[in-house]
């Protein structure tokens, strides 16, 4: 197996035993990027030089005989909505094409402190709005399993870079499924932690009450290792929860005997691809075979989650993105008559059509005369959706569903129909509304494209999700299958 295909845990063992140096490891990954990036297009910004400098520092540590942490010296990358001092952070938007943050996001700070080597910034749907990474102002990212297909989104660069072995792991952000849905499309492990488990400080906000940062990895173990490094209370984020952070790797036991798994039938309604349904059914059989008690259940407000999500998220985004006005940073239009025309032209030029669509929708939902009918109504339905989860999770340890209703679709296929694109989040967005954790793990294939299994749990039950996901992974081989990326593909 190529070194770049190995898990972070394996790479750590190699570094510790001095089988390879951090610098050599970085060079391996740079070689890999040079080989496949032309086709995958996962990166907005590559920072090979600073990666090599960081690697040299880790090597010095190793040479001095210092003990290194589990993520030290291992190459990774950040979704391009996380601020990193001195490194361009674009949100894949023309608006921030040249924005260089003067500060580090908390997750960046924590990973760099842990010795992580950042190879750069990863492509995404502009300001994390989208489900295919086609809304990047720069270029779409391609699915390593089929380059004519989308990666899913909005964390398309995060999942494609991991699936294509350009990095050992990455961070993504998830507002309505933006880690889990693309993780499913690209056959990797993606976790959206409980709201408040990981600091949002330095994450350029899309919808503040829904956004969470989470790890994208090749294995469940790696996922737990990365969450260990990034989770935990942060005084810079008022919505960060002061909880007692466990060592997530302690939950990685190959045993789910007697665990209760609920299958909400509403997640298997119309719109679910038959192939996907079949894969999930097989996964359920696997889990049953491993001793889990699997029962069907009902979450009656599921059908209301999508419209609720598409009122709340745009409303918050319309306010969060107001700051992009051409005064302090970012794009500014030329030849401005006055401030209002500067604001309007700057924003018209700087934002892409999906971002504008959501700003329009959110502004409307909050505007005078419509607030009660749309925004307030959506917040009330949000309460009902949350109660559905609370009720179901009283009876079950975890809930199980497909991560996405279909496998990856073709590039361009849904671009002209916003609503059908939005439906791609139908299985993932309810969890963001409830603020609960969810993980997507590879569960099989339909026509050569990966399918993801979603596990959902109680607040701060990431450990339980890891246990079920790990047991499933250890008893299946889907995560071992790699996309056949060849350099010759011409697009």
């Amino acid at each position, binding site marked *: 197996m190529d070194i770049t295909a190995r898990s972070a845990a394996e790479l750590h063992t190699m570094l510790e035993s001095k089988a390879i140096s951090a610098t050599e490891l970085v060079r391996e990954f740079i070689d890999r990027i040079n080989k496949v990036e032309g086709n995958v297009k996962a990166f907005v910004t590559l920072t090979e030089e600073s990666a090599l400098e960081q690697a040299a520092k880790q090597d010095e540590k190793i040479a001095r005989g210092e003990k290194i942490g589990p993520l030290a010296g291992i190459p990774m990358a950040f979704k391009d909505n996380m601020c990193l001092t001195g490194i361009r952070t674009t949100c894949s938007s023309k608006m921030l094409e*040249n*924005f*260089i943050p*003067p500060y580090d996001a908390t997750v960046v700070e924590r990973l760099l402190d842990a010795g992580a080597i950042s190879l750069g910034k990863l492509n995404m749907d502009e300001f994390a709005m989208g489900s295919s990474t086609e809304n990047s102002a720069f270029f779409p990212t391609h699915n390593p399993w089929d380059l004519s297909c989308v990666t899913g989104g909005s964390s398309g660069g995060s999942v494609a870079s991991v699936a294509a072995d350009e990095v050992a792991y990455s961070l993504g952000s998830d507002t309505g499924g933006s880690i889990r849905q693309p993780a499913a499309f690209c056959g990797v492990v993606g976790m959206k932690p409980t*709201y*408040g488990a990981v600091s949002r400080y330095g994450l350029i906000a899309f919808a503040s*009450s829904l956004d969470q940062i989470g790890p994208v990895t090749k294995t469940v173990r790696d996922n737990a290792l990365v969450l260990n490094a990034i989770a935990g209370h942060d*005084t810079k984020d008022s919505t960060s*929860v002061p909880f007692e952070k466990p060592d997530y790797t302690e939950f990685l036991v190959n045993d789910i005997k007697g665990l209760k798994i609920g299958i909400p039938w509403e997640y298997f309604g119309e719109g679910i691809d038959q192939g996907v349904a079949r894969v999930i059914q097989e996964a359920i059989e696997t889990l049953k075979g491993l001793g889990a008690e699997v029962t069907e259940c009902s979450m009656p407000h599921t*059908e*209301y989650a*999508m*419209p*609720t999500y*598409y*009122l709340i998220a745009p409303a918050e985004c*319309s306010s969060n993105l*107001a700051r992009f*006005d051409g*005064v*302090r*940073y*970012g*794009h*500014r239009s030329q030849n*401005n*008559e*006055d*401030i*209002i025309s*500067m604001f*309007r*032209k700057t*924003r*018209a030029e700087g*934002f892409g*059509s999906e971002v*504008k*669509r959501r*700003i*329009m*929708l959110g*502004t*409307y939902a909050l*505007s005078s005369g419509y607030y009660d009918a*749309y925004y*307030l*109504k959506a*917040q*009330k*339905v949000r*309460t*009902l959706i*949350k109660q559905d989860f609370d009720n179901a999770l009283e009876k079950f340890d975890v809930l199980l569903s497909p991560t996405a209703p279909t496998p990856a679709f073709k590039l361009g296929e849904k671009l002209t129909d*916003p*609503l059908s694109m939005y439906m791609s989040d139908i299985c993932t967005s309810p969890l963001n*509304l*409830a*603020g609960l954790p969810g993980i997507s793990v590879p569960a099989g294939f339909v026509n050569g494209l990966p399918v993801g299994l979603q596990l959902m749990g109680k*607040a701060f039950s990431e450990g339980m999700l890891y246990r079920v996901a790990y047991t499933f992974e250890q008893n299946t081989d889907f995560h071992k299958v790699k996309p056949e990326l060849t350099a010759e593909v011409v697009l």
Partner: protein
Amino acid sequence: MKISREEVEYVAMLARLELTAQETEDYTGNLNSILEYAGILEKLDTSEVLPTAHAVPLHNVMREDVVKSSMDAAKVLANAPDVENGFFKVPKIV
């Protein structure tokens, strides 16, 4: 149609977006279909339901009133499109 072209223009003004005629038309259509879809929420009786603004119930998160050093002025202005004499420069206000 729940939302008219004029309303779309008004919302675009509120949101400080300059839209082309084509965009105005497109967004009028998009917003109408999305809002029509959102109309299913009307089926639910929520008169007795409290709204959820935060997914995780926290309260009283505060810090102490202790001064920390501010950012270097050069850094404050580093990303600005137009700067003069330590100020951010903008076109006339009215």
